């Protein structure tokens, strides 16, 4: 009894996984599992608002598809910036310039030596 009483004031519930939330919205959970999700909702305003909003979607089966779409769009933004950074990094590599310079020097020296040898 006292443990149950503690639950009223405790906000220690773990975050509910996305799959479980989808099953809750599609009414696929048992009463006990639904209670667990609802306990989390009662403690967490973010989740409570989210569930209220998700319940407004006409086709809840498509929600996970929609989330995947949003995530793949997100990846384009987060990955692009990383690539740009890598490109910039490449430009900033001093060894690239040093190697080119050494190769050029070797060609010039080689050319001079060959010319001297032929003369």
């Amino acid at each position, binding site marked *: 009894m*006292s443990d149950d*009483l503690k639950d009223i004031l405790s906000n220690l519930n773990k975050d509910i996984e996305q799959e479980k939330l989808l099953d809750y919205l599609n009414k696929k959970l048992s009463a*006990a599992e639904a209670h667990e999700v609802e306990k989390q909702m009662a403690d967490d305003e973010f989740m409570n608002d989210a569930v209220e*909003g998700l319940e407004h979607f006409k086709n809840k089966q498509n929600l996970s598809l929609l989330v995947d779409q949003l995530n793949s769009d997100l990846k384009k933004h987060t990955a692009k910036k990383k690539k740009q950074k890598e490109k910039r990094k490449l430009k900033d590599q001093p060894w690239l310039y040093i190697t080119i310079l050494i190769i050029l020097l070797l060609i010039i020296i080689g050319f001079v030596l060959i010319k001297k040898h032929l003369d």
Partner: protein
Amino acid sequence: MNKNKYQHITDTELLNRFYAGHDNEWLGILLERYTMLLLGVSMKYLKNEEEAKDAVQQVFLKVINELHKYKVEYFKSWIYMIAKNHCLMKLRDKGRFNAEINDRALSEAVEPETTNNFIEKDKTLDNLAGALLQLNKEQQQCVTLFYLEKKSYQEIAQQSSFSIMQVKSHIQNGKRNLKIIMDRMSGGNES
């Protein structure tokens, strides 16, 4: 899949990795954890599927462009606030809602509400049982069925004459009132 690969890393750790190297990939992994919740919050306020989807994308961009400016400690609370403010601003632009948007919200990281200090004291549990009796009949019934008998909203609605929405609201208001009564009790005990 990334989601599983990084599952063991906490939000705080991902946030620290992002701050350390400004690598947006970490931020992407963190944001993905909240896509569905953000979609739900946007839908709650905007009540339109396309607008909700756009809002989530705009919130993502806002976070990608602005997170490095702030030292955020509680990412979940912070992003909830960003999304909520974004939707309220959209509604205000449309004239559907006259919201006061507080710009300070961007830089404020709100500590998640915690009342666990209460729990350690046995006395608190006695107070809690007493406080429960001070709630109105509807709230007392719903809070008891929900927390003590572990019933779901659906089961409580079936047992009582309330709709699911009413059950939800009685539980939320009951919980809030319990905290107020408990605060009053602990204030009274100290003086």
